[in-house]
């Protein structure tokens, strides 16, 4: 019931006009995160434990994990599978994002503005510039803020495309085809691949 009420409230609040004021704290969070990721990548390499640790610490892993598995996949999972999923997910999503975000943070990113969609749900808009100073793409950082834990990164949209949707689509397809175990195996492979990259780098 609570979920329904929340969903209703969210939907009621949601509007395509993002009229709320700037959220400097969210902008600061994004700038800080980008800077930290870039530094880690430059010092220890893309996909390094430091990069993944930073991501793991700053990603809203619980929300993303629930979103990606919600529905039939979650219903079909056994308690044991669910526990393994919860355990693997933070490492998995950090490994998956490490490469994607790494490609972005290696270039110059300038924050342009921030918009609060609803309390605690903020979009920080930025642009990606190449070495010649030409704008290459729009990057939207969707961050979620809570009084307890501060801001966490929920989604990164490149040119308005949300990887959350396509990632969820691929999760659903994998569960449909290979079952929950197939998904868990894939997550483990992604984590292991990150470790391999790290070892190769060493």
């Amino acid at each position, binding site marked *: 019931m609570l979920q329904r009420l*929340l969903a209703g409230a969210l*939907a009621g609040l949601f*509007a*395509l006009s993002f009229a709320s004021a700037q959220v400097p704290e969210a902008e600061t969070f994004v700038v800080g995160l980008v800077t930290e990721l870039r530094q880690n990548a430059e010092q220890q390499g893309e996909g390094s434990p430091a990069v993944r640790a930073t991501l793991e610490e700053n990603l809203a892993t619980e929300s993303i994990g629930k979103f990606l598995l*919600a529905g039939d996949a979650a219903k079909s999972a056994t308690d044991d599978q669910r526990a393994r999923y919860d355990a693997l997910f933070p490492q998995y999503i950090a490994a998956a994002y490490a490469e994607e975000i790494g490609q972005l943070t290696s270039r110059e990113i300038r924050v342009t503005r921030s918009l609060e969609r609803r309390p605690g749900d903020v*979009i920080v808009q930025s642009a990606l510039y190449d070495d010649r100073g030409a704008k290459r793409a729009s990057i939207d950082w969707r961050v979620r803020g809570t009084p307890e834990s501060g801001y966490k990164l929920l989604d990164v949209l490149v040119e*308005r495309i*949300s990887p959350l*949707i396509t990632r969820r689509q691929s999760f659903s397809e994998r569960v449909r085809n290979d079952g929950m175990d197939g998904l868990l195996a894939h997550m483990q492979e992604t984590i292991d691949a990150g470790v391999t990259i790290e070892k190769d780098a060493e």
Partner: protein
Amino acid sequence: MNTTFLDGLLWRLIAFARKHRTVTVLFWLLLTALAVFQVMTRISINTDSSDMISPDAPFRVAASELKAAFPDLDDQVLVIVEADTPDEATAFADTLAQKLSTRSEVRSVLSPPSEPFFQQNGLLFLDVQELEDLLAKLSNAAPLIERLGPDPTAATLFDALAEAAEAEEGAISADQETLDALYTQLSEVLTSAERDLSWETLLAPGDPPDGRVLFTLDPVLDYTKLKPAKAIKAAILEEVAALRAQGELDADVFITGEPILRTEELEAVSSGIGWALGLSALLVTGLLSIAFRSPVLVASCLLAITLSVVLTAGVAVSLFGQLNLISVAFAVLMVGLGADFSIHLLIHFREEYCKGFTERAAAYRVAREIGTALSLTAPTTALAFFSFVPTEFIGMNQLGVIAGLGVLIAFLVAMTLIPALVRFFGMPDGPKPSPLPERSVLSVLVWPVGIVVLALGLWSITLLPKARFDADPMALRAESAPSVIAFNKIASDESATPYRLNLLATDQTELQTRVDTLSGRETVDSVRHLYSFVPEEQDLKLSLIDAASVGLGFALISGGDLGTELTPAIARLNAALADEDSPAAKRFAEVLATRNEADIESASPRMFKFWPRQRDVLTEQLRAGYVSEEDIPAVVRERYIAPGGTLRIEVMPTGGAVDVDSRRVFVNDVLSVAPDAAGGARTALSAGDVIGRAMVQASITAAVLVGLLVMFVVRSWRVLFLLLIPLFLAGSLTTATGTLFGLPYNFANVLVLPLIIGIGIDSGIHLAMRAQKTGDALAAVRGPTGKAVLFSALTTIASFGSLIVSEHRGTSSMGALLTIGMIWVLATMLFVLPPMAALLYKQSR
């Protein structure tokens, strides 16, 4: 019973009519005038075929409960809009629905594309996987949507495509499938001035959507008019024409639904009926002229037939007031049977007169010769018709009463009016009948043909189990009628098929229990009810929409790329396409190479004709919110919940249940868990079963009663045998022929069977009694009795056989089956009965 008693009785009747000819004629004319007045002031016809079955039949009880709760359900009009693209179909349907909703002929319109509830919450009605696929596709198209903005140009689109084709990661991310679809559509738009770009197709996942949109409306029907739906049909066509005349949108519009189907059915039945009746009158007159060779006798016969029909109509209206689609066909029976009595009387009368007897003596000799047969045919035929009275088939038992009384009326008219008229105008002279030759063509043919007909008749019995009654009203309607074409378009559509079933529930708990019993059944495609308009898994779906709406929201509020020039955009695109491998890209490059800027500029409006609409639709869809039962719009609610709170569950069949076999499987499967299911699918099947049983029951009753009467009067097993065997064979052969040639019995042609019984009994009694009297059935066939049997059947064929060319399939099947039936009556009476009589009376050839 002494048969001379009946001869004497008939003679007294004829003699009385001859003696008091003026009184007799005036009596019938006065009664006819009264009948005409009665018919003109009181007659009404109930065209609802479901009312022709006993209201106590279980399927009628279920249908009545459904109708009581949802009285307007059967009156829905369905509008089908078809266009080249789904975009145009939707736009046309939306505009048309909005215009119709303001018309006085329309009570309410349910058009999902126009309904804010569905515009806003439409995505929630997709299943999760469909929604994921759609949102992924839309999300990938977000960069393109953003660049195009609200007022795009060909330059913007081409530049964006070039950027995508240059394939730099992160530039434009529409997937290759979407890009190829866009290349293909653009090639078509640039090469055909008729083609518009379909954004709905481009942005839909999976198979491209149909260019077809359906909506329903609840019309205001004027039942005081003969065609209650004429006004709504005209209103729809008027708005369609007005919309087309504006020149912006074009689509084919088809209208169907029960009120429209009935209106057009009436048009199809009445279309050309004047010509058919005129032709029939000419043919009947021609046949009677051949039979009598006297205008006076022809006119007398026609007058007797006309009076019989009118008087029977008067009696029918006095007894019942309202006739039904079956009983109104009594006129067909009366023409056939009225002619039968008159023809037998007049042919024998003329024959005797031409032998040199006076009129009075000739009339007396007729009474002596065929008096018993004539007197016996009327009550036996009437008895056969009365056999339909105790059946569940109200349509037919009303016809049974009317036709039974009509036969007695026709007999009295023929036996009194015709002698009176002959007395008035005199029996015309004719050549003296020559004695029958020893051998004739008939005497040569009768045995071999008789054996063949008998063999066919016996074989036809094996086909009887396959005979069926098709109670589907659609089987009667003209295939060329626009409403039938429209019906057939959607019949196999699982989401729109009319062959559905309905259940009722008193509350939500009962509804859910009933829905649970139906879920998972192979024959059931889906179940709709009030609560099915509250989408499932809303939390998840809303969170998916919410996630996608971040990027799409920015894309949709973007002002788009402004200032892109066409010349450099074309050059950039040409260069980018040169490196593309897909056939669609190559084809587009070829087309682009043959077009100059002016061509592209002129095609530009067709590229973006539906773009603003698509943006609006997307914007609305992303506003989806949590839907509760209270949010369901009234136009939907009133279709699923009655004012008293009764809930309706709509059960849709897998595959549409178009053919009878799959419909039966679907209905039986649902009935096994919901015996009170009601709806078109069940009504047609159950009515067919009831009618089939009624026909068998009535036929057996008729055979028993007629047999008892014949035995009581004639006391001869031989006569009974000679009467019933050919009659049974004629019925069996007719039924089997219909089965073989795809002519099942239906509401229109079912009266052929009683007609066969009526004329078959008449002919059989005449021939069997002549055989008993003379011991030579073949002579009877070759003499005036055979001639009367032949012309009686031919007259009936001439009267209604021409209906075979009618566009209305029911009417046409009546003409066809009636012709087939009369041919088999002739075949069995003229070729099977004489050899049987010869064997029974131990006569050799």
